[in-house]
């Protein structure tokens, strides 16, 4: 059933796309979807496509893991401790809007031209999102839960493990879900230097060559990557937040 609905959604998108491409441009602005999908299908058989996909997926997955590892605990600490929050929040709020793109030269200098710089940039941007979402979520936690566990003699670590982490998980997952979109967008930016692998590179390069076939192969690949990441986050949440499925009445 879920699958049927995904197919329906895809069909609707293709229809809109087809209308748009028929109305304007006759392929100059948007290739027609039949062409695009057949090109996509053909490229699925080439190692070139899988090569790009693997490069991008690897970067994004690693970045998501890094961002989560750093931002999730920090977000919990900020959300749960007024004292820490009071000092760190201004720091976060002042640096959050700094466009990370301008940090590129510094990051490159410190971490070289390779994948490390790319991964760090994505996780920097993603990390902020996880941080803010988790912090807000934890700050809104009903304090009764904390009281209740504190009354059992729980220390900081227990509160963290038994209350704060499970309460923050859904918020972290929402941020991660949002982050799949952001990461994919940032791929463009980080795959525009010092690499010839990755879907971002594929799209930008094809765009530069005005090669729409390749460009839409890249775009479809990226949408696929995004949807897969999205579903992966959903799956993870399904497993880790089991209690959320228990509500019936």
């Amino acid at each position, binding site marked *: 059933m879920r699958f049927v609905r995904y197919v329906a959604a895809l069909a609707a998108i293709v229809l809109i796309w087809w209308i748009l491409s028929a109305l*304007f*441009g*006759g*392929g*100059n*602005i948007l290739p027609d979807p039949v062409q695009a999908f057949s090109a996509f299908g053909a490229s699925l058989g080439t190692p070139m496509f899988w090569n790009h996909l693997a490069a991008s997926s690897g970067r994004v997955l690693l970045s998501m893991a890094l961002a989560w590892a750093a931002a999730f605990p920090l977000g919990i600490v900020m959300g749960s401790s007024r004292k820490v929050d009071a000092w760190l929040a201004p720091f976060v709020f002042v640096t959050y809007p700094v466009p990370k793109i301008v940090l*590129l*030269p510094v990051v*490159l*200098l410190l971490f*070289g*031209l390779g994948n490390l710089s790319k991964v760090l940039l994505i996780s920097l941007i993603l990390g902020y999102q996880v941080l803010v979402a988790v912090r807000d979520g934890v700050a809104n936690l009903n304090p009764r839960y904390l009281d209740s566990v504190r009354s059992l003699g729980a220390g900081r670590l227990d509160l963290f493990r038994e209350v704060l982490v499970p309460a923050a998980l859904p918020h972290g997952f929402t941020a991660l879900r949002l982050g799949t979109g952001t990461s994919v967008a940032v791929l463009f930016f980080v795959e*525009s*230097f*010092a*690499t*010839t692998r990755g879907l971002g*590179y594929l799209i*930008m*390069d094809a*765009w*530069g*060559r*005005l*090669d*729409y076939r390749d460009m839409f192969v890249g775009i479809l690949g990226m949408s696929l990557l995004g949807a897969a990441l999205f579903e992966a986050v959903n799956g993870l949440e399904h497993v880790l937040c089991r209690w959320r499925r228990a509500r019936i009445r």
Partner: protein
Amino acid sequence: SGYARAQARDPVRMGILPVLDTLPLQVAIHEGFFERKGIQVELVSFNSALERDAAMQGGQLQGYFGDLLNTLLLVRNGIPMQVLTVSYASRPGRRMFALVGRPGLDAPSAAAVGSATVGLSNATIMEFLLDALQERAQIPAGTWKRIEVKKIPLRLQMLLSGQLDLAVLPEPLVTLAESKGSRVYLTDGDLDLPLTVVCLRRDLLESEPSFGAKFLAAYEEAVSALAEHPERYRELMSRTCRIPPSLQATFPMPAFPAPGLPDPARVDQVQSWMVLRGMIPERVPYGNLVWRSPQ
């Protein structure tokens, strides 16, 4: 799609990039040369060729400034661009693009650099130039490792901080790099190539037969104004052509060729290169590519 200009009285919009080669267009606007010829032209600036091409395809522009390569790609994609004039061609003793070394790289010549990394952007005139320069300097194709860095300022920064050994850069950044201790190895000076061009849509040129001539006349006026009183336009250049602050007072005012069509042999050379790399399936006939005054 047609070109979106509701009425003949609406200005013709030209997409430009903030580079030196557009100075004559800026001068023509600044001095009102187009108006005096009875045509309305508006310059719309873009940060990079990608966005400019998107607007071109979206039918929002009727003309543009760009490189020859890009023009051919647009034509291949069914956007009927016609070259009115070369805006910059390389000439001996002048440089617009150059292969520059990082500060501290003390190889005396390009050939002596040996294995090294070079930053450039693929599928642009820079790649074409690098091929041409390397061939002329007789440096084998695989000697340098090419590293794609699309954003030019980033490329310069990476060169200056030593993460790239070499980079292909345009002016005025070549001069800037030189001032920071870089050595200039190869330049486009004597390649004699038409690098950048000014184009308009064919449908515009055909529906208003006198437009092309008027446009060229105004453009010519701007070029000669620039040649006569170069210093008068220094401020305009600094403002519109991204001249680094440290060079604004000293950067030599460039000289521009009088309007003219590119040399067919040179266009052919570019097209061969593109066909070889699969960027265009076949050559565009020279006659379709350029606009000639009907008389």
